[in-house]
């Protein structure tokens, strides 16, 4: 008896699934479509695979697998969900293309808004006075609220842009902090030097050193003794946009190849050492500042003064020719 009851119930249930539903309201919002059991199966399979890939990701994470494996598993899980959704969108979702009207403007509301604003000022007789006062208050308050932002930096103090640690008598040291000797400077290569006992984290600090044959020198007037034995020192910071000038072009086949130059790898400004850092190619607008050198008693390289110009990129108000020279 009991079993028969269950079987009837089961039959009723199964039958219900297949019977078209006549008890639904006539008007649907979403149009009905035919079932697609294969697509359902495909979507379910893709989602199960996605779950497996996601589980695999967790396992891979736990065993500290490679980035490639982790990325592959996660991308696989996400991609399988994407595939499931796309199959569902194509085969399980009702295809509908519906018409609708584009929104129209609201002339009545527009007029009402205008009138509300206009009619609200009926008690105000001196609009310009109030407008000017409100404007003044707004501007002043705005300025007051913005003022604390000036604490962000030493604004109105361009002298901090000129800062450079080089003085007459300061020794040149290499990356390791050892003094640089004149005899250690070879031709056809370049060296990076720093000021002894000063911070290296300033634009003015790093130098680039090259040695040329003294007979090749064509330095500007006043710099005759700036390059003892043909050793030239320049600020290593490009006057165009502030990158380190870290290429030295020394052609082997003059005059077919361009002239020797210190080159910045960011925008390829080229500065000619023998003429005192003049720009011979690229976007830089000022020569590379030269530092006068002298050779000390122990053959060590020593600064003989200050740079020939401001270091680093130009700004409005920087002097183009050397600002001051000692």
């Amino acid at each position: 008896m009991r079993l028969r009851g269950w079987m009837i119930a089961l039959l009723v249930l199964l039958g219900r699934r297949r019977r078209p539903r006549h008890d639904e309201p006539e008007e649907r919002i979403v149009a009905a479509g035919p079932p697609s059991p294969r697509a359902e199966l495909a979507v379910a399979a893709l989602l199960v695979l996605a779950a497996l890939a996601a589980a695999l990701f967790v396992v891979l994470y736990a065993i500290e697998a490679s980035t490639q494996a982790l990325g592959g598993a996660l991308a696989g899980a996400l991609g399988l969900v994407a595939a499931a959704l796309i199959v569902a969108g194509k085969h399980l979702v009702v295809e509908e293309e519906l018409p609708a009207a584009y929104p129209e403007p609201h002339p009545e509301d527009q007029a009402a808004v205008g009138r509300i604003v206009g009619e609200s000022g009926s008690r105000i007789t001196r609009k310009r006075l109030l407008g000017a006062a409100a404007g003044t208050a707004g501007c002043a308050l705005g300025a007051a609220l913005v003022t604390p932002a000036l604490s962000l930096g030493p604004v109105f103090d361009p002298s901090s842009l000129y800062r450079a640690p080089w003085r007459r008598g300061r020794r040149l040291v290499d990356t390791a902090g050892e003094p640089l000797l004149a005899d250690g400077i070879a031709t056809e290569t370049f060296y990076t030097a720093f000021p002894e006992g000063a911070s290296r984290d300033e634009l003015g600090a790093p130098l680039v050193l090259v040695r040329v044959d003294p007979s090749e020198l064509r330095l500007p007037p006043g710099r005759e003794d700036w390059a003892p034995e043909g050793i030239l020192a320049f600020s290593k910071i490009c006057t165009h946009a502030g990158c380190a000038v870290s290429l030295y072009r020394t052609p082997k086949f003059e005059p077919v190849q361009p002239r020797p130059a210190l080159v910045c790898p960011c925008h390829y400004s080229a500065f000619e050492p023998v003429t005192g850092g003049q720009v011979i190619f690229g976007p830089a607008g000022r020569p590379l500042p030269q530092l006068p050198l002298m050779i000390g008693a122990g053959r060590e390289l020593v600064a003989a003064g200050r740079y020939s110009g401001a270091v680093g990129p130009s700004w409005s108000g920087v002097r183009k020719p050397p600002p001051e020279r000692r």
Partner: protein
Amino acid sequence: MVRRQAATAEPIRFIDERTGAAPFARRMLRYLFPDHWSFLLGEVALYAFVVLVGTGIYLTLFFEPSLADTVYTGVYGPLQGRTMSEAYRSALDISFEVDAGLLMRQTHHWAADVFVAAIVLHLLRIFFTGAFRKPRELTYLIGVVMLFAALLEGYLGYSMVDDLLSGMGLAIGNGVALSVPVIGGDLALLLWGGAYPGDPTFESRMYIAHVLLFPALLATLIGLHLALVASRHHTQFRRLRAQTDRRLVGVPTFPGQAPRSLGLMFAVAAVLFALGGLVQINPIWLWGPYELALSTNGAQPDWYLGWLIGGLRLMPGFDVTIGGYTLIPNPFWGGVLFPAIVMVVLLGFPWIERRLTGDRSIHNVLDRPRDAPARTGFGLAFLSWVFLIFVAGSADRATVFLGLDYAGQIAFYRVAVWVVPALVFFIARAACRALQRAEELEREQHAAETEGRLVGR
């Protein structure tokens, strides 16, 4: 007859009684999306943004935005014992010691590149189909602002890491800030907190801008952008006769559009994680820590800043001076004026076009590029201008890989960036007109044939 209640009825009633959201939800579910593949480009950008936020939050949990010195003792051998900033050290740790850290970092970087690329492609679609016209000028403006915000956001992101490449990028950024006429020096001092490399708090400033200010700005603008899109409805191509400037035909959000759109979201995420896992990007451990006195040859920024590098490199070397004092430093032209012109032209284009054509009517049906020969011609010319300057930014790579003379290439580009866009304008406009004429002929022929058949019968 008592109908069985759907399982969803109770929660829907719960929410509607407490929020009044049912009418809104009903409208949104039946909001119509006209169908065209190119309408998905904006969605790609949106989903890349979602991935950016997700991976970005993960990275903030490990990244230390500090320029304090530390000595590296981590697992990456070549850098052991090197002095570096905490910021760079923590980025190395994310790459080597945080499980799944490198996956997240690389996916974040890839997502940024794809985000900007999708925005640019979306912008091209909008431009060449005239989708920016009334009543969608504000939607368009917000989109263009988002493009530039995304560029800055990306720049800040890779600048915070304090590896050698990011330091070089910041040095250039400082040079560009300094180059603004009159106020440049003060502007750079203010932003950096002092002369370059600036105050250590500069790192904190970049960090808060990158993880809060710009993402919040972008999220707000995305919200506004989408709200405006929905309020004016999507544009449509005229595929059916029923599709006019007053009536649209489209697929409803639910159930038609939702699985497609969500499928696209998962597909975008899948591609980004696959890239992040399988394709190396910005291997910061190879660049080493930033030191002011160092730079590397062949340094290339992320692709979306290539046009600015090109602009900086193409300028002939001069500073504008007055009586021995600099007024306009050189980086201004390529680094400030050039992007400013691009931005102003893009922002102003809906109004420029309206001025030139006198067309003030509402447009909900899209143009095909050929339907507006002058716009298409101008757009392609403008695009070729920016694109050539972008390509000029990789002239050094062409020298390395193809052996082309660098100076010769620069001389070529200095001419080409003006000549090519002019040619492109006339050729594109003529091509559009020819296509229009061909269509007209075809229509006439078709009409004549139909008539002939009718007469013959």
